[in-house]
């Protein structure tokens, strides 16, 4: 193993004017890594080197845009090294992205981002050309938030491609992209996106501050950034929305939100967000307004069922059986009397089983995932009822609950945990317990706000305009008359609409 000098603080070291020294420095900084490519060449009588990282650059583009022009360059006998630099920076268009760097920090970072570095003997600077050519996934249909009538393209792992997907949808100079890097080791590219005419500067500044506060070593997915964007870490809910759909992302930017695109993940982030938005999809705007409103109402009911149904069933059957009609009560008694365990225990066990099977179905390959559903849903469920371990109504309740939870995938984490808490609360203290937990959850959601924009708007605080598009779905002819922005929902004394 070769021993190199300590270059742990290489970021601020200036590039050496001697090509040999500069190359030695680069090799030392990178510890002789095998993917460092150095091509030394003489251009117009001056020693030069083209440095790149293997597979991060496109060999074809490098050959066509860099090697051929450089090797055929003739500047005359009396040329100086500075003439090559001038040619590279002033008289040629070798690549669409071009920077001059003076320290190893920038040089190394850009090399790892797919740039090629040209060094000229006698010059204490390097010339970077963007000729990225690393392998990437092609633009594909999004894996989450599937729709029937909307666009089919989704974000991918490459930030630049994602930026272009957004730009294609919003061809306005008001759309701004601010690129920066986070992660002391990963140096992940992160891009703040906003519409300058729609988004308040206060909100953009706040997002900038929160991103600059990230001191992590590595940032590998949106989950690393999300906690820093959330205003409250103690909340059950999150005021940061994720999406891998460029159309949804662009639509939210037009509402005055700030988007964050992170290199290496197809999931982008949006702040701030409202609780109600978890029930909206892109398809809502492709369907007729009355149908979209109807579907949204179905989703609200599905959320309530997904969280409360098993808990309320346990509470009613255990503590408040007078609520049931006589016939229903009789059939429940008949089915429950054959089971050996208390109702709350049965429901907890069957809910746990469902969560286990669901988790297994997600992690397993798709072909095996189906088999898990069959084993769990049909075989275990049927056998449990037939053997008298659990009653049939519990299976019906669980089936309805599970199906309801699939309707709102964005709130999957919250519904899973809250459902279990509600079952226990219902089993311990009936509807009283469930209401206490609900009150705490309601207050928890109400406490969430980002830059004065409440998470529970437009319901509480109530905003009339929010009901047109967020709670219900008005037609485009009505929507075009009044553009609603997220800043309109800011709870404050200047907001005349807030009730």
């Amino acid at each position, binding site marked *: 193993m070769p021993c190199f000098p300590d270059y742990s603080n290489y970021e601020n070291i200036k590039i050496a004017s001697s090509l040999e020294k500069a190359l030695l420095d680069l090799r030392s900084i990178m510890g002789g890594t095998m993917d460092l490519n150095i091509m030394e060449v003489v251009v117009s009588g001056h020693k030069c080197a083209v440095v790149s990282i293997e597979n991060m650059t496109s060999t074809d583009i490098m050959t066509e845009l860099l090697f051929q022009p450089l090797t055929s360059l003739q500047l005359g006998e009396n040329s100086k090294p500075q003439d090559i630099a001038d040619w590279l920076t002033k008289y040629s268009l070798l690549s669409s992205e071009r920077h001059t760097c003076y320290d190893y920090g920038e040089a190394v970072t850009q090399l790892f981002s797919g740039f090629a570095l040209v060094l000229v003997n006698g010059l204490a600077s390097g010339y970077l050309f963007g000729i990225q050519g690393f392998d990437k996934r092609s633009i594909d249909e999004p894996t989450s938030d599937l729709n029937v009538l909307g666009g089919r393209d989704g974000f991918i792992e490459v930030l630049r491609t994602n930026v272009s997907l957004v730009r294609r949808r919003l061809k306005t100079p008001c759309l701004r992209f601010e690129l920066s890097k986070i992660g002391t080791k990963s140096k992940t590219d992160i891009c703040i996106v906003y519409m300058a005419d729609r988004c308040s500067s206060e909100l953009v500044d706040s997002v900038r501050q929160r991103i600059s506060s990230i001191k992590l070593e590595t940032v590998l997915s949106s989950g690393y950034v999300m906690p820093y964007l959330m205003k409250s870490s103690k909340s059950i809910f999150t005021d940061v929305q994720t999406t891998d759909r460029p159309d949804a992302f662009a639509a939210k930017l037009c509402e005055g939100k700030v988007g964050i695109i992170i290199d290496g993940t197809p999931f982008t982030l949006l702040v701030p967000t409202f609780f109600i938005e978890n029930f909206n999809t892109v398809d809502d705007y492709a369907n007729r307004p009355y149908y979209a409103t109807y579907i949204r109402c179905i989703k609200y009911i599905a959320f309530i069922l997904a969280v409360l149904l098993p808990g309320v069933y346990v509470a*009613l059957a255990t*503590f*408040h059986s*007078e*609520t*049931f*009609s*006589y016939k229903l*009560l009789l059939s429940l008694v008949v089915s429950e009397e054959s089971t050996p365990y208390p109702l709350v225990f049965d429901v907890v066990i069957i809910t746990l089983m469902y969560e286990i099977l669901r988790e297994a179905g997600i992690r397993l390959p798709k072909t095996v995932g189906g088999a898990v559903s069959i084993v769990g849903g049909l075989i275990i469920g049927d056998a449990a009822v037939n053997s008298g371990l659990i009653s049939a109504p519990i299976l019906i309740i669980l089936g309805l609950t599970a199906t309801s939870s699939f309707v709102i995938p964005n709130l999957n984490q919250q519904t899973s945990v809250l459902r279990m808490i509600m079952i226990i609360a219902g089993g311990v*203290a*009936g*509807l*009283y*317990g*469930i*209401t*206490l*937990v*609900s*009150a*705490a959850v*309601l*207050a*928890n959601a*109400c*406490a969430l*706000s980002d830059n004065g924009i*409440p998470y*529970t708007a437009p*319901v*509480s*605080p*109530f905003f009339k305009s929010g009901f047109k598009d967020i709670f219900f779905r008005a037609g485009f002819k009505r929507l075009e008359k009044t553009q609603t922005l997220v800043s309109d929902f800011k*709870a*404050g*004394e200047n907001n005349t609409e*807030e*009730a």
Partner: protein
Amino acid sequence: MKKPHAISAYQLICLLLVGRLFIMMTYSPAGGDNTLITILGGLITNAALAVVMIFPLLLLKKFPDKNAVQLGFCASKPLGIMLSVIYTAFLAWIAVKTMCDFSQFITFAFPIFTAKRVIVVFMAATALYISTLGLEPIARSAAVVTGLFVVMLITVLLGTSGEIDVHNLNISIEDPLGGIIKSSLGSFARNSELILACLLLPKLRSKQCGAVYSYITIKYIVVGSIAFLCSAILGDFAYSSPLPFFHLSSYSNTSIIARFDSLFLILWTFCAVTKLSLCIYLAGECIKCISPKIKPFYATLPVTAAALICSVFIIMYYDITKAENVYIWSAVIIILAAVIPALLLILPKEKRSRKGASA
């Protein structure tokens, strides 16, 4: 000027209304009440409340951003501490009464709940958590609870729609004057939430005067309407049994739901927790006036603990209904809502302004 953690007039009305709804739900009528007496008595009560509220509103007109406790501190520290202790004690007592009333009536209405002490412990823990979140979450929750109340009231009414009969209204009065005075006095004593309003008004973003009088009007309409409905559906039973509003929901039924008691319980609990959270929050704010650096949790914790211990003690050894002396309660409301603000108005203006500026 921006007010931190401010609430809107609508939210204030919802907060106060939820507190009042809780009292109404646990209200047991006096022997001689009937619909007409209740409605007329309520009219007099609300007129009196409107007069009482003139003093805190006048005080707020001069000092829009300060409540009585804060103004007391501006005048002198001992006065501030004294007012802080008085208001904290009052709020703690309201918290105790809320918990005791709730446990008393839940065990009456739902015999399956026997562990009164456990009920108040759960409730206190939930309210403590909510109060530490701040005023805005409580106010937003109150707005949702108010909406829920409207939905549930409509549901209950749908279940009893066929039973409404104006012939059930008993409007004969044996002693009109005595009955109305007795009813209005009792009704006045049930308006302790106006003290909460006095403490909340400086946190209001919009016009305070309009909010207070809107609340008094809305409250009168809501309470009057429910009293009317209870009488029209239940007849004399509404005034001869405890918890008439509860009986209205237990009487209500549809082909799907046999009884609406459970809906009543949900609403009851929501209102109780919201009111309790507000009391604890405001008590914590009063404590913070004494020690501004204290964190919200540590300001509210002693109040919650004291209220909880007191509630458990009362539940075990005492009947809370015996503490409901209308004269004492009326006097307390007048002192805290009118007399103290009036006295603060009389204090030399220079003193308050100077100290207020330095504060």
